[in-house]
């Protein structure tokens, strides 16, 4: 297993190792008996007739009861581990049940489950994760979940289209993220960068639906957040094609879009972008002329321009839009 960085992941890891040891023991017993029998009891004479043993009640009782005890131990250990994990519900505090009922009482159970310093709303959609930060600044990121380190973080997650799954192996339990339902994950991690990816098959770019968590010390986080908040509302400088390219290539754009000779090898969007600037229209929409203003509008909210388009609203910040427009207009 990957080295655990949260207490929950640590608990899973410890349980895994204990159960694995029991499994290896059983494996050795079975394979040992098998190999010994093959060597020791192979037929030596064509006419030999072994003793005709039909069974042995004592022996059979032993290999019914002993495995039953081993299984009971594994069950007890598992229940115990579940009880000690913060991220999933215990019997007295069944957070997981929230999925099924999704009401105010359930909500309160989630609040009680674990004191938190920050709640981030997560939306899973084909084929990105979007992170909405609390507070009125409208900060939303698509690529990376940046959190303060050593703080209790809760993710309130839902899906916009099909089922996805949140799986960060180092950070604790995996959970499905269902449309129309809420899933919750808690973690508290030291500074560092962690990677995982969607773990329920969700369509053509499923393999590209990566999730990244970056934990920064509080001061650095605050600095990062202030920058995001500022960039969300207004662009602070004119669009920079190089910054736009960086953004494009390091984001989920590449999951669906194709630009020859780059990392963008997605084949979901109907037209490739290799020579985007030469196209007369955006999104093959009659009358929607390909210019900077329209392109910015499209990037801000594709659904309002062309309802039903596969292009999601990426909640791009003003500066990001300016940079992307500058970059896309260099594609000739």
């Amino acid at each position: 297993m990957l080295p655990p960085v949260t207490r929950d992941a640590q608990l899973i890891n410890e349980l895994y190792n204990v159960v694995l040891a029991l499994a290896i023991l059983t494996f050795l017993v079975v394979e040992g008996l098998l190999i010994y029998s093959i060597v020791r009891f192979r037929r030596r004479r064509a006419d030999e007739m072994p003793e005709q043993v039909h069974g042995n009640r004592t022996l059979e009782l032993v290999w019914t009861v002993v495995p039953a005890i081993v299984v009971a131990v594994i069950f007890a250990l598992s229940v115990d581990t579940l009880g000690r994990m913060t991220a999933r519900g215990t019997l007295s505090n069944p957070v997981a049940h929230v999925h099924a009922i999704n009401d105010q009482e359930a909500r309160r159970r989630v609040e009680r489950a674990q004191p938190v310093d920050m709640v981030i709303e997560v939306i899973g959609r084909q084929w990105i994760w979007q992170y909405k930060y609390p507070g009125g600044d409208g900060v939303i990121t698509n690529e990376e979940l940046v959190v303060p380190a050593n703080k209790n973080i809760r993710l309130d997650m839902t899906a916009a289209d099909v089922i996805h799954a949140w799986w960060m192996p180092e950070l604790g339990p995996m959970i499905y993220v269902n449309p129309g339902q809420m899933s919750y994950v808690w973690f508290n991690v030291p500074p560092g960068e962690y990677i995982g990816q969607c773990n329920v098959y969700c369509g053509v770019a499923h393999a590209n639906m990566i999730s990244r968590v970056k934990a920064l010390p509080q001061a650095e986080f605050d600095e990062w957040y202030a920058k995001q908040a500022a960039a969300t509302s207004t662009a602070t400088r004119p669009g920079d094609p190089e910054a736009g390219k960086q953004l494009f290539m390091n984001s989920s754009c590449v999951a669906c879009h194709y630009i020859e000779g780059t990392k963008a090898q997605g084949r979901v969007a109907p037209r490739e972008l290799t020579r985007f600037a030469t196209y007369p229209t955006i999104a093959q929409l009659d009358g929607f002329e390909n210019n900077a203003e329209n392109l910015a509008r499209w990037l801000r909210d594709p659904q309002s321009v062309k309802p039903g388009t596969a292009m999601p609203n990426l909640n791009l910040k003003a500066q990001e839009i300016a940079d992307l427009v500058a970059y896309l207009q260099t594609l000739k």
Partner: protein
Amino acid sequence: MASISIPLPLRERAKTGLLGWLATVDHKKIGIMYMVMAFSFFLIAGLLGLVIRLQLAAPNMQIVDAHTYNQLFTMHGTVMIFLFTIPMLVGGFGNYLLPLMIGARDVAFPRLNAFSFWITLGAGLVMFGGFLLGARSDASWTAYVPYSNKTYSPTIGMDIWLLGLILLGIGSTLGAVNFLVTLYTMRAPGMTAWRIPMFGWAMATTAVMILLATPVLTAALIMLVADRNFNTQFFSANQAQLWQHMFWFYSHPAVYIMILPAMGIVSEIIPVFARKPLFGLRAVVISTALIGLLGFTTWVHHMFVSGVDPVLERFFMFTTMVIAVPTGVKVFNWLATLWGGSLNLKTPLLMCIGFLATFVVGGLSGVMMASIPIDQYVHNSYWVVAHFHYVLFGGSVFGIFAGLYYWVPKITGRMFDDKLGKLHFLLMLIGFNVTFFPMHHLGLLGMPRRIATYAAGRGWETGNLIATIGAFLLAFSVLIFILNVLKLRNGQPAGDDPWEGNTLEWSTASPPPEYNFREIPVVESERPLFDARWRTSHLP
């Protein structure tokens, strides 16, 4: 061996040639057709698997694009389960062997039997024909809603896939009814419950499972067809788990439908090649029935991270772990049958040993995964891919090959080349483990299943490369089997009973005549042929 004379039914002279196959209601010919069909689908789905392994051999491979890859793994899983393993074990071995083993001249409803086969073949052709013509589903074999609804899977491929499965369900259900009636009403005189061969018990349990589980899947499939085409709302967006409940209510028992007949095969072969009775026959029978029963109480373990009630989860964790006990009893009883025997290490027994050695790994990883916290790590990862291949290839496929090496001499009247068989066994055992063992490790490193490609730098390169090399070794071993089948034409004549068998099929000619037995044998023990041989050689 005692026997009673029942006049042969007056039949038209058996038709020969192509029409003899197309119009047949003979359980043996139907069984052979099932086997040939299933094995063909095994080869096709195996080839799809090789493309999958090639694509994953290294990071960022572009052998096929992501869309095609998704169609390939969907079809690989669907074909292996529904068009190979189940028809091979239930339709193929079940049809050919059940009447022979219980001393009957055919199944209870021969025409219905033929209908089952043709509808199964038809379903296979619909599904695979659609695939070849471009109507392909890419929703994986589990087809989770809402991905499989009209919004996210708009193409006709999904409907074709659903139609194919509905048809297969009909064939499979009718076959199960037929087997149960046959077993209940047509056993030879003297064949009391405890004298039914173990394979018969395995098939009886399997048939009951098919009867109880298949209607639920069929209902779910029809509801999804309605959702897609008539705008019903059975699986509306806020009920993500309903499909999963219905799907796994069939598809978890389906695992036992695929493994119990293989266990039945192993339980027949080991006693013959050890020259000992099956150790603790009654315990094995009861364990089989218990596995069948408990198999219906475990489906939610596929949904431990889907978001179901935690009390429910703990209940299903318990039942899933409990099923390890009867499974363990069977494994230890097989080991005890080998112990102290006189082991004739021919290919059929080697395949059974391969079954035991590898199935145990899948069984143990199954218990591990039943633990909810562990499942929260390994669920849907390559660890799971390793687990179910250890159960379904290590278990079912080794069992199928054991059965083929054991009974094809009865079916064709010719012996396999045993040396070639041993080579096949050795390469398959190595190839299988090289392919699937590293996948445990890949899963622990965070590699999800069903990804069309992956980026470099996450430690997945070596494991994937090894697995791909193993897959080609595995494929090569199957080629050796095909060579062995082609060589059958010149094989040694098998005679009635080449292995010193225990059960009634070895008392008739190889291949058996259309009516199976001229005189219906009277059964006086669980091993009628063994006892008959013993009497001839030891009594004055």
